[in-house]
């Protein structure tokens, strides 16, 4: 019982950064821009959040700094792909290389050679505490509560039900028609990328501000790429992307727990971790020509 409760709690916890990242990437892609800057944006969010929280003593100000950095990263991606009309995937890779480099550069300058600095991480809150052992599944960081109860529904509503969301989907599906209908393709994509960047950066900051309370190199370790996979796994739908994040996190948390049990230590857990990537590629292969990419995926828009 304890094992299951513990596992489910860990699943929610570990899914949190993936939820932020996946929702953020969904916004970018639904507007027609594949943002491969996600890995670097999460990394920069993790570092900026930590460094600011360390300097000010306030994780909340750290979180704000991460959001600002994320918006900035989204704006750079928009500048590249919307204003300059540059190649989306090459721009994204450049953004990731540059942001990881810049974070590690700043890390070296600020925390040079000293011992690992720590901050007091954000507290765990559980409104259901006292309802028995099962309730401890909900021993979660505030950012996890915010992700599932606020961000996911709000992001879904904004994308699917608001007129702004309709504009995002329109410029991602058929920018010519959106433009003809009077929607500014550039402005909409800028906003979608900046919102997406902010969410990605919060996902990164979750590691430093909540989960670990410290910044270490390679802290994101490819989770940005996981989010890219989850967006496709979820067929560009927020709800399905979140379910994908929970499934991935369940597998991840399970292997982490099995690994320390006697008799399981020799199993090839790496294969288990590779599963989400392989599932996405397999799903793409099975859907064949029926994959419903956003219509303007990877295409810069220019009035002709």
């Amino acid at each position, binding site marked *: 019982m304890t094992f299951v409760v513990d596992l489910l709690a860990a699943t929610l916890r570990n899914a949190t950064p993936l939820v932020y990242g996946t929702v953020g990437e969904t916004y970018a892609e639904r507007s027609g821009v*594949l943002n*491969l800057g996600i890995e*670097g944006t999460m990394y920069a969010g993790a570092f900026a959040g930590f460094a600011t929280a360390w300097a000010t003593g306030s994780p909340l100000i750290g979180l704000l700094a991460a959001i600002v950095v994320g918006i900035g990263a989204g704006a*750079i991606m928009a500048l*590249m*792909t919307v204003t*300059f*009309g*540059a*190649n*989306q*995937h*090459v*721009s994204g*890779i*450049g*953004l*990731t*290389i*540059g*942001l*990881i*480099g*810049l974070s*590690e*550069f*700043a*890390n*070296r*300058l600020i925390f*040079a050679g000293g011992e690992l600095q720590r901050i007091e991480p954000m507290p765990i809150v559980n409104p259901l505490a006292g309802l028995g052992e099962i309730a401890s599944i909900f021993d979660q960081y505030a950012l996890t509560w915010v992700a599932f109860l606020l961000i996911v529904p709000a992001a879904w509503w904004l994308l699917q039900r608001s007129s702004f969301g309709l504009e995002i989907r329109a410029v991602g599906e058929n920018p010519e028609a959106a433009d003809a209908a009077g929607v500014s393709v550039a402005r909409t994509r800028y906003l979608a990328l900046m919102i997406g960047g902010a969410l990605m950066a919060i996902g990164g900051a979750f590691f430093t501000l909540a989960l670990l309370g410290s910044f270490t190199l390679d802290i994101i370790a*490819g989770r940005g*790429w*996981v989010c*890219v*996979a989850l967006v*496709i796994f979820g067929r560009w739908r927020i709800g399905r992307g979140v379910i994908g994040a929970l499934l991935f996190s369940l597998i991840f948390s399970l292997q982490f727990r099995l690994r320390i049990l006697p008799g399981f230590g*020799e199993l*090839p*857990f*790496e*294969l288990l*971790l*590779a599963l989400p*990537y*392989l599932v*996405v*590629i397999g799903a*793409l*292969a099975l859907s*064949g*020509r029926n*994959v419903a*990419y956003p219509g303007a*995926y*990877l*295409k*810069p828009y*220019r009035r*002709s």
Partner: protein
Amino acid sequence: MRISPWSTPVLVLAAVLITFVITAGPILVAGANPIEAYTAFVITPLTSQFTLLEVLVSATPILFTGAAVAIAFRAGYWNIGAEGQLLLGAIAAAGIGTLVGGLPGIVALPIMVAGGAVAGAAWAFVPALLRVRFGIDEVVTTLLLNPVALLLVNGLLHGPWRDPVTGFPESPRIAASAEFPALIERSRLHLGFLVGLVVILAAWYVLSRTPAGLRLRAAGLSPHGARFAGINVSRTLLGAALVSGAIAGIAGVSEVAGIQNRLTGGLSPGYGYTGIVVATLGTLTMPGVAIAAIFLGDLSIGASSAARSLGIPSQLGAVVQGVLLLTTVALLAMRRQRSGRTGEADKGGSVTGDVAAEGQPG
């Protein structure tokens, strides 16, 4: 002859200068003089024999990955998976390298290189097949196979290949006859660099002087036009993807046989992604790739020496790489916009269109 401000060499030089202006910010924050810093990055490594050779050592893996990426991009196949293909080549080399102890180097080395090439091509095969069969976008599939390859490396190192004596996650050392010999005594410069140059030369020849190269460039420039001209675009893309994967695989062989002598978890600090920087900066031409690889090798050696002499964290090297990639693609896109090309190659923003539009030889 009038030199257009938008000609390729001018454009690339402008990208480098703009990058240096942008990255002067972090240098100033680090309390150093940008001019001194760039001198240390670019010039200092070229002034002693030891550092000059080290420049070539660090240029070696990205010669391969740069060529691999350039060939694929040229065909309009967006292979973002050079990192994973490199790791597969490294796995193959580490495996074969321990088995060929009884063979002389002249036999063992070609087997290893071929094995790594096959492994890299095999890793590139599935995304390429999905692209030409089902039209499934290769950007995401090639990218997602990179973490899978890294997990495969870690799985091997923490499982069957873990060093039985020390327990370190390192594969057994490869046989002495399987090691790439040093090109110059008491230096780390190894056979891999020569192999890289041969690959670049061969790729240049094929791209610019053979019908296969013409088909590849035509497919990248305009798939519809190429199809109209009777070119089998699917087969051309598949071929480009496999060759690209094979060359990236040899990069892994070169690092295992020339530097590490075994498979390690930290074998590649992102050489596959740096290959994208090299290919783009080299505007997808083979001479360009060679120059860009050596330039980035120079920067990376310069960045580590500037860390010691000027106290600028060496991670600035990665910042420069990222900014350089962004400024280069931005300038290339602006040039395309100026020339009124709407980027016909179905995913606009192609780097290929620019280069080919100038009619440059491969």
